[in-house]
């Protein structure tokens, strides 16, 4: 990979408002542009495209983060980064020639007058304006003015050309001609170009990459689209290219989703003023397991009351009952599987769609798959020996998961499939209460189960099972449990939600502190949480580097470190890809809209701030699970195409439930 020519590094731009507030125009923008590349910035008006361009030009300075060109920070504007401004910015009191001469003479100070005038004439000829060289801009048409502006910019041989909606004000015919000219000129000059536009066809025709910005405030990069059309390009050839309409519909889909999100934001306004001073009661549902450790700590240490929350934890023994109560409005929030917010919002399994959101990930990792002892006696110790064994079997392997369609099932299916096992034919997946798994296995009704590691460890201790795989073999650091609630509840009780998140985040930090482990085991062993029977398994869970047999030596769950709390839409995108892979839903063509509705990283940031932690942000780089196939959130369909046993990759626009859905929200 070549070193980036221009790097936008973690740029955030904040403008002070007249009323003393702050407007965050851009948030955490990361972008690398290589030399000679043509990149378009696209997005709705007010999304900060021009702000970003001005930052690249050096006309403004980022509030945090910075811009590097050739490894040097951009601190002020300069002719090597020439801008073609939105309204041409020609000096009206100078002729075309004088306008260009001002730039050339000023930049080429060391050259002779003859060289300067040669460059000026050459530039005028380049855009075909020889006949108008001595006219004033006021006497020129919009298209001609824009050509002068481009000629002026190119005359000084910039290394980076920045175009701010260069053809926005022109009629279609002129625009088409100029686009073609610009493309030829840029290609000949080999100049790196960044163009702001809102015209999808223009972006596709000219660009190597299209960077889509989400709506402001706090605009970020929503998607980056590669435009692999061959160069040199001709408008008609481009439009007839087989990839063109796919690319075009991606871009238009993005813009439409952003528009709907904007409308949604305008429609949804809080019913009660935020920031109630008194203690707010929050009913939280959970299933006992190691994943509730942050909750237990937050309660025990008084973090919740510190943040003004009176929590009523409600324990369940089956995920289905927890979900039912959440949907009925008997619970305000719940700690659920990472797949639940999306599954509820999509309405999988024929349920009515329910607009769920998640402001934070509570835990990551922590699952293990175990099989009954007899399998290891048969020599099955890994995926390939299991696959081998299953080939000859007439009945499927019976494995239990805690809930249909939860994160464990997705991991398990992905892992099985990567080893050549068809999870729908060679395996039968049953949903069982995690508390019942060990007993069911003992009764011989299942062959194995995937569950939290501490539960697996208990079954191993009891001599029933051996561990076949942990989530390190599947996806180390996967989101396991997230906080889930209804969109309306989040809106109307935003303070309570943020406070709850902050308390859980602080609890999570303590769970990862090795000095706290003894206390943590004692706390979780209390009757109200996991019970004294869990103490041994818990001890082992936290006892890194102990002397367990190698198959049981499990690394820790992640509660806090390495950006564990992020509500990461890219991971949501992977979950959606799996829903579609196993034929549970079509792949939503409006996935970005869905994801930005469900994954509320804005709430996550505010909760982190409230908890006193540094803000987290996801990396845009593709990630891979243990099978090594890279998942690029900008191109999930390509990922699906690389996976075995892909049931359906139908693209479908999925209507999203809104807060005003018929399901009533129970009042307190």
């Amino acid at each position: 990979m070549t070193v980036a020519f221009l790097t936008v590094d973690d740029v955030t731009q904040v403008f002070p408002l007249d009323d003393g507030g702050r407007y965050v125009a851009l948030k955490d923008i990361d972008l690398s542009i290589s030399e000679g590349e043509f990149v378009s910035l696209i997005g709705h008006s007010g999304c900060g495209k021009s702000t970003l361009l001005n930052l690249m030009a050096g006309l403004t300075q980022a509030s945090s983060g910075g811009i590097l060109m050739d490894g040097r920070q951009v601190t002020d504007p300069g002719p090597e980064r020439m801008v073609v401004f939105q309204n041409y910015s020609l000096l009206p009191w100078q002729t075309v020639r004088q306008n260009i001469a001002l730039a050339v003479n000023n930049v080429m100070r060391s050259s002779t007058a003859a060289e300067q005038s040669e460059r000026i004439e050459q530039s005028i000829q380049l855009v075909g304006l020889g006949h108008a060289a001595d006219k004033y801009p006021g006497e020129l048409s919009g298209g001609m003015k824009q050509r002068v502006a481009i000629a002026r910019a190119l005359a000084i041989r910039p290394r980076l050309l920045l175009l701010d909606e260069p053809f926005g004000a022109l009629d279609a015919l002129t625009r088409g001609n100029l686009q073609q000219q610009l493309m030829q000129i840029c290609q000949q000059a080999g100049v790196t170009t960044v163009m702001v536009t809102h015209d999808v066809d223009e972006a596709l025709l000219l660009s190597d990459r299209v960077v889509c910005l989400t709506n402001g405030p706090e605009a970020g990069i929503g998607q980056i689209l590669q435009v692999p059309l061959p160069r040199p390009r001709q408008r008609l050839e481009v439009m007839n290219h087989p990839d063109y309409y796919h690319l075009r519909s991606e871009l238009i889909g993005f813009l439409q989703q952003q528009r709907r999100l904007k409308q949604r934001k305008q429609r949804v306004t809080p019913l009660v003023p935020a920031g109630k001073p008194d203690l707010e009661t929050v009913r939280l549902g959970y299933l006992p397991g190691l994943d509730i450790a942050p909750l237990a700590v937050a309660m025990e240490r008084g973090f919740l009351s510190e943040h003004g929350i009176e929590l009523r934890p409600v324990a369940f023994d089956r995920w289905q009952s927890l979900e039912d109560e959440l949907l009925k409005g008997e619970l305000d929030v719940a700690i659920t599987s990472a797949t639940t917010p999306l599954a509820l919002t999509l309405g999988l399994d024929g349920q009515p769609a329910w607009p769920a959101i998640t402001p934070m990930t509570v835990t990551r990792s922590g699952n293990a798959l175990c099989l009954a002892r007899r399998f290891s006696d048969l020599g099955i110790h890994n995926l390939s020996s299991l696959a081998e064994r299953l080939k000859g079997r007439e009945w499927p392997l019976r494995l239990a998961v805690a809930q249909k369609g939860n994160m464990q099932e997705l991991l398990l299916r992905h892992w099985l499939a990567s080893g050549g096992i068809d999870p729908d034919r060679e395996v039968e997946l049953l949903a069982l209460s995690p508390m019942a798994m060990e007993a069911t296995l003992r009764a011989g009704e299942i062959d194995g189960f995937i569950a939290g590691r501490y539960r697996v460890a208990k079954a191993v201790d009891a001599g029933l099972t051996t561990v076949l795989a942990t989530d390190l073999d599947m996806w180390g650091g996967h989101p396991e449990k997230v906080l889930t609630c209804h969109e309306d509840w989040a809106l109307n009780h935003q303070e309570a939600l943020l406070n709850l998140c902050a308390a859980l985040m602080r609890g999570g930090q303590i769970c990862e502190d090795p000095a706290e482990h003894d206390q943590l085991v004692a706390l979780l062993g209390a009757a109200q949480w996991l019970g004294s029977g869990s103490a041994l398994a818990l001890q082992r869970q936290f006892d890194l580097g102990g002397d367990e047999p190698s198959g049981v030596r499990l690394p820790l769950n992640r509660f806090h470190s390495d950006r564990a709390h992020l509500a990461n839409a890219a991971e949501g995108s992977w979950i959606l890809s799996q829903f579609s892979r196993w034929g549970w839903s079509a792949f939503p063509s409006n996935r970005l809209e869905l994801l930005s509705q469900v994954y509320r990283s804005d709430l996550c940031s505010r909760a982190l701030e409230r908890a006193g932690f540094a803000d987290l942000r996801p990396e845009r780089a593709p990630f891979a699970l243990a099978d090594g196939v890279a998942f690029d959130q900008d191109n999930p369909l390509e990922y699906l195409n690389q996976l075995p046993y892909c049931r359906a990759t139908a693209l479908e626009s999925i209507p999203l439930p809104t807060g005003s859905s018929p399901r009533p929200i129970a009042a307190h």
Partner: protein
Amino acid sequence: MARLPGPINVIVETWDPYISQPFFDDGGTSKGLGWQILISLQRVAMGYGLAAVVGIAIGGVLGLNRFIGKGLDPVIQVLRTVPPLAWFPISLMVFQDANTSAIFVIFITAIWPIIINTAVGIREIPQDYTNVARVLRLRKGAYIRNIVIPATVPYVFTGLRISVGLAWLAIVAAEMLKADGGIGYFIWDAYNAGGDSSSSQIILAIIYVGVVGLALDRLVAYVGSRVAKGGN
């Protein structure tokens, strides 16, 4: 109530010598209207010219330096509302000379619109042009020559046009109070003379004052349009 003469009477009564011989000179203050107007114009030229030079300079400083601009704005706003003739007694006290005082009154009347418009013009230079200057890294001199001055010229000339009208208003009034010669002196003199043709002389002088005022305005506008050639 005294009756004023009709148009024909005005012309008949002033034909000789005021219309037919604009440049007669009987010595002393008894001169043709042409001379009287030239005397007034001379005073205006001095006061107004001085106001233009000083006003553009001060306006330039105020426009380029936001700090000074903000600090001096209240002072300017107070002083510019003082009526021209209110300055006259105090300038007579200082200068002890009617001619110098009249020039000073013109100066002090004409300077405010020039200052204000120049400063506004510089502050209102479109961001686009300053951005161009910043991207090209224009030096200060080139920036002022190529951008500040051309962009400000229309504003300056708006100020100059307002000022020339005010200056002409002020000179007639100042000359009526105390002066040797000038069109304002002529009007007041004719009134004091109280002769049969006095009212006709006054009416004729008023018409001349108006015509000259219009001519001055047009002249400044014309110069402005020539200077700001190729402008918006």
